[in-house]
């Protein structure tokens, strides 16, 4: 019989990490940290999880511990949110540049100032270009399954993975989650094989100063320069989409649970109006699509699961028949527009998709977004496009200030 528990997103994440059996967990235990780190410490304390649990004085240090432990061959985990993630910024680049398969949860919260502990995506969005894979979860089951998949992906392409899920909205809400069997997870997730191992028996220097050009080392072997290393990371990213899809497909074959590889679709087959977003807002949008269909509007939803690598080909396929697109996103690139909207437009450039896009900035700092509000916004988008207004627009939903 399957083991279903009614748990929060944080508890689902902790269970997933336990099943992935990391050797080292590092965490800064104070706000904006969530209960996830606390539950993991209990697993280690009780002996349910055999791991070194290292409490540190800052998020910068927690990722540094993960980088070091991963370098010497341990599977690692850490978690943070909001300003804690920003404090890791330098080390995020370092983990990616070192090609270490660190897996981290970002429990998405708004960034200060002013202080907020509530949900939006500005924290992980602002770390978009650090060289991490970013996956966004739509519910608590997705959180559990994605973390397990994240280790498989990270260790295959040697790129760190950030598993992002909505603070409070998922992290503190309990819902039924099916817990996979430990043996099955072991079968899915082979042991971590580091690309380089530091050991006193085989001393090496890694990540020393790289010069602009390629150079011979002391043994006369021509080595990559800095730019070549960066190109290798980009190439690995280009291949990672396929690895993410494979991991998702294999997991679905084993468990029957398919959260989509890079994107997931809901009733898009004949959709004239497509709603899109990342995380729980995309789940909420599926209810809006149901309601719009009750009104006779053929609506569907595309959930963006992988934000980096951005699923260029998949979105072109998914959106090609839509006559109106409404993006609902919880982040903004100040002075321009929301990130998903920009990336969609870039993906559509040079294709036959000329569909106008309305970009709704929603839910910043936890502002509530109800299904009915998504319905109204999406309907307005469709009506305005039908009326011949073909311009793109950015609209702040439920925002009343002057």
């Amino acid at each position, binding site marked *: 019989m399957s083991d*279903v528990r*009614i748990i929060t997103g944080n508890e689902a994440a902790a269970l997933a990490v336990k099943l992935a059996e990391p050797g080292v967990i590092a965490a800064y235990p104070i706000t904006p940290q969530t209960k996830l780190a606390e539950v993991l410490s209990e697993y280690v304390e009780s002996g349910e999880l055999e791991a070194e649990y290292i409490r540190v004085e800052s998020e910068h240090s927690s990722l540094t511990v993960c980088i070091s432990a991963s370098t010497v061959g341990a599977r690692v985990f850490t978690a943070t949110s909001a300003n804690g993630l920003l404090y890791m910024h330098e080390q995020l680049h370092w983990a990616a540049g070192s090609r270490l398969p660190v897996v981290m949860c970002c429990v998405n919260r708004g960034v200060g100032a002013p202080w907020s*502990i*509530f949900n939006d995506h500005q924290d992980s969005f602002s770390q978009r270009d650090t060289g991490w894979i970013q996956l966004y979860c739509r*519910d608590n089951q997705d959180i559990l399954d994605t973390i397990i998949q994240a280790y498989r992906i990270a260790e295959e392409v040697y790129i760190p993975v950030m598993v992002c899920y*909505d603070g*409070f*909205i*998922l992290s*503190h*809400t*309990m*819902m*039924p989650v099916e817990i996979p069997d430990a043996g099955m997870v072991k079968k899915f997730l082979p042991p971590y094989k580091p690309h380089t191992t530091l050991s006193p028996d085989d001393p090496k220097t890694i990540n020393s100063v790289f010069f602009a050009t390629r150079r011979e080392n002391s043994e006369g072997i021509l080595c990559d320069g800095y730019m070549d290393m960066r190109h290798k990371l980009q190439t690995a990213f280009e291949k990672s989409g396929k690895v993410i899809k494979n991991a998702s497909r294999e997991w679905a074959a084993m468990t029957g649970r398919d959260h989509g590889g890079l994107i997931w679709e809901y009733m898009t087959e004949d959709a004239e109006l497509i709603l899109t977003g990342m995380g*729980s807002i995309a*789940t*909420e949008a*599926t*209810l809006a699509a149901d309601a719009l269909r*009750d009104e006779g509007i053929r609506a569907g939803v595309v959930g963006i699961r992988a934000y980096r690598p951005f699923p260029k080909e998949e979105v072109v396929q998914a959106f090609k028949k839509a006559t109106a697109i409404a993006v609902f996103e919880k982040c903004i690139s100040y002075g321009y527009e929301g990130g998903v909207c920009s990336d969609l437009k870039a993906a559509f450039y040079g294709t036959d998709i000329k569909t106008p896009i309305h970009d709704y900035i929603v839910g910043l700092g*936890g502002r*509530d*977004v*109800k*299904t009915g509000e998504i319905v109204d916004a999406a309907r307005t988008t469709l009506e305005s496009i039908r009326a011949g207004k073909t311009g793109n627009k950015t609209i702040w939903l439920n925002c009343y200030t002057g």
Partner: protein
Amino acid sequence: MPAACHFCGITKQQIKRCKGPWAICHMALFLGEIMAMHEIIWHGRGGQGVVLAAQILAEAAYIQGFPGVTSAPTFGPERRGAPLTASTRISNESIRTFSQIGSADIAVILDETLFETATSEGRIKESGLVIVNSTLTPQQIRPVGNFTVATVDATGIAREYHLSMNGSPVVNTSLLGALSMASGLISLENIEKGLKKKMPQDKASLNFQAIQTAFKRTLYVGSNPKFRTQEKS
């Protein structure tokens, strides 16, 4: 399977347009075949076990066979003594909404002084159900809105069973008994099972005695008595 609901004559195809008593009357007819969501909001003060009650109800509902359940605390920093809410959603399909509950089908009020806030404009659906911890009868409470009121003296029951924490009576579990009685949504048997998932055996059995007593003592009055689908034991 009858063609239409006994109570309001609605057919299965029309179910979403039901203006009746929050669709519960159709549950017995179309269980498992319709999408019916029940939104329950719990009002209390920090330290009263509001969040735990919302969780126990979600556990019990899942055991009863509702595949979609969620429970969530108010999204905010909680303080002992401050008014707060928690919510439970119960549905025949997986829950896809995580926004805060606007108008609830059922409001459960652990602290009577919160009655006015909890039942203010728009917080309860028309012909919804309000369950209050009070020594008053529903008639004495006299609701302004068009909803059913149920009362139970959960504080008195907590004293009878010596249920207390940090010197305050524990009223959250008794209100689960009142909810079972007044709504007929979740059986006592399943509430007991849900309770056991959230607390140790000895504590659960003492709390369940209080729940059974609360079930028996719950009084209700309203324009529509069909909330009560279970017979009084």
